């Protein structure tokens, strides 16, 4: 079922439970029917009438097909790619034939079974081919996204200031200096880790805390972070480094340029089968704007889209003097992936 798995991009069936995939199937088949109607009929009006007639036949079938694929998607995911494709085509054709036969039995449609089977097979094959092309087109994008993630992540300003802070600690508090270096090491290890792999939310939260510890050391009482993590399911899976850059942004734009102390809020919770993450920081009116916000957001948005397609969203807004970033994504776990 996962649409992203290490080193095996080219050999994966589409995820039939993904909204984006379902939407593409519906749009493609209907477009095909519309084009066919336009080609067969002499006038626009006649073509539209024909399309509506066809749609009455087509939509219930499509609904059945999509629902069945949705149901068996985990089973299909276990097959090798080639067998998976065959299974999908066979399934689609079988459903079309049964549907057709059921309608004919009721004397509703004159079209022969063979025709239904042929078009079902054609549509299924073309769509499988299309999804395969999409996956191929995305895999360089993934490598690219990984690189970008790296580049946009390492803010030299942060690295050098952190090292400077550690140097200041070495003589007066060697223990804390050690812990800070360990935190920095963990942070950088995650920066250079495989950006194409899902990580557990608990690991991402640990990373947030390590990052926060370093910032706390540099900024002292100027930085106050409120954590609301009680409703965060630790087993949720998400793309790596989606939350940490947002916390870094919150500190960089909302705390560092201020002379007074400020509060950053980090709230992560599960609502039904969705994960909601919210990060807030104060909006500062004075002073020149600090650059570099856009890039981090675009990068996160892009990676969420690569992992979840249309099922994740990122929103930013200003609310009562607070700048809020909200991420919503499906609640995905190791068990659900395997199921």
């Amino acid at each position, binding site marked *: 079922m996962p649409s992203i798995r290490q080193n095996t991009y080219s050999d994966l069936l589409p995820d039939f439970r993904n909204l984006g995939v379902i939407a593409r199937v519906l749009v493609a088949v209907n477009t095909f029917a519309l084009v066919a109607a336009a080609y067969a009929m002499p006038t626009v009006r006649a073509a539209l009438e024909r399309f509506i007639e066809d749609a009455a036949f087509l939509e219930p079938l499509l609904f059945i097909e999509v629902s069945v694929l949705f149901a068996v998607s985990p089973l299909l995911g276990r097959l090798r790619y080639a067998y998976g494709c065959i299974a999908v085509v066979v399934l689609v054709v079988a459903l079309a034939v049964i549907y057709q036969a059921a309608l004919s039995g009721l004397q509703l449609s004159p079209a022969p079974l063979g025709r239904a089977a042929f078009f079902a097979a054609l549509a299924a094959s073309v769509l499988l081919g299309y999804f395969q092309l999409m996956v191929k087109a995305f895999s360089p994008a993934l490598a690219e996204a990984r690189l970008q993630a790296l580049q946009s992540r390492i803010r030299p300003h942060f690295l050098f200031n952190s*090292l400077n802070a550690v140097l200041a600690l070495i003589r007066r508090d060697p223990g804390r200096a050690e812990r800070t270096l360990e935190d920095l090491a963990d942070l950088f290890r995650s920066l250079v880790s495989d950006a194409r792999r899902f990580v557990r939310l608990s690991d991402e939260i640990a990373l947030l805390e390590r990052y926060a510890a370093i910032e706390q050391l540099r900024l002292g009482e100027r930085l106050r972070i409120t954590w609301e993590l009680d409703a965060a399911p630790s087993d949720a899976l998400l793309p790596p480094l989606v939350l940490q850059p947002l916390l870094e942004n919150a500190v960089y734009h909302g705390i560092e340029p201020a002379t007074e102390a400020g509060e950053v809020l980090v709230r992560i919770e599960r609502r039904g089968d969705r994960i909601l993450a919210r990060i807030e920081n104060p909006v500062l009116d004075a002073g020149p704007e600090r650059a570099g916000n856009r890039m981090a957001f675009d990068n996160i948005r892009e990676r969420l889209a690569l992992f979840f397609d249309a099922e994740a969203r990122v929103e930013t807004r200003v609310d009562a003097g607070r700048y809020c970033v909200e991420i919503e994504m499906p609640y995905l776990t190791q068990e659900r992936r395997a199921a």
Partner: protein
Amino acid sequence: MSLRVFIADDEAPARDRLKELLQDIAADVPTEIVGEARHGLETIERLPGSGAQVLLLDIEMPGMRGLEVARHLAGLDSGPAVVFVTAHDKHAVEAFELNALDYLLKPVRAQRLAAALKKAAGARAPSGEQLAAQSAHLSEVREYLSVTERHRIVLVPVRDIVFLRAEQKYVTLRTKGRTHLIEEPLIALEREFARRFVRIHRNCLVARDAIRGFERAAPSNDEPHWLVVLDGIDERLPVSRRQWPMLREIVADRG
């Protein structure tokens, strides 16, 4: 005689580190710390009375960035030599070299710090021109203009300024409530704050936001001309014939 040093950095560990290093090199360069500041505005407030000879100045500070701090301090009679400190800023570093300003990179090395202090001990405060060139190089625009009163620097927020008018040796700076005199050429101010002010006359810049409208003045023996009506002050300022078409457009664009 030990060198009097002032440290300005927003991060406590960074200030601690500099103090530690100053102790380490005390045998080579004896120093005495005469003050510290946690942000730009605090530096402006505390430095003038501190008697500091050298200022170690972080350039990425809240309140006011280091470079602007240095520009305001340049107005002091016996301002400190300035050593800029930066964690990472490629553009700033290139420009420092170009404008012959001294700088250190964080984390700072003891040797480099000693060398910078020795050099600074004999040096004068950086000139306003050097610092202005540095700002222009980095497209940094000041948030304040400053007036130096004996041992105090008075800051006037640029956004409060209604107009700037050149008068013989000085430029008059007018806010809603007060008038100050500053010693900066109008042409340089026009260039730096081009987004905020517009020239209405050979000798006068007004804040675009402050323009309320225009009034026609018709002196009996002269050609009629236009006066600009400004927000919050009664004084009307004459618009030169040359600037009139451009001003009319600015106001028309605003609707």
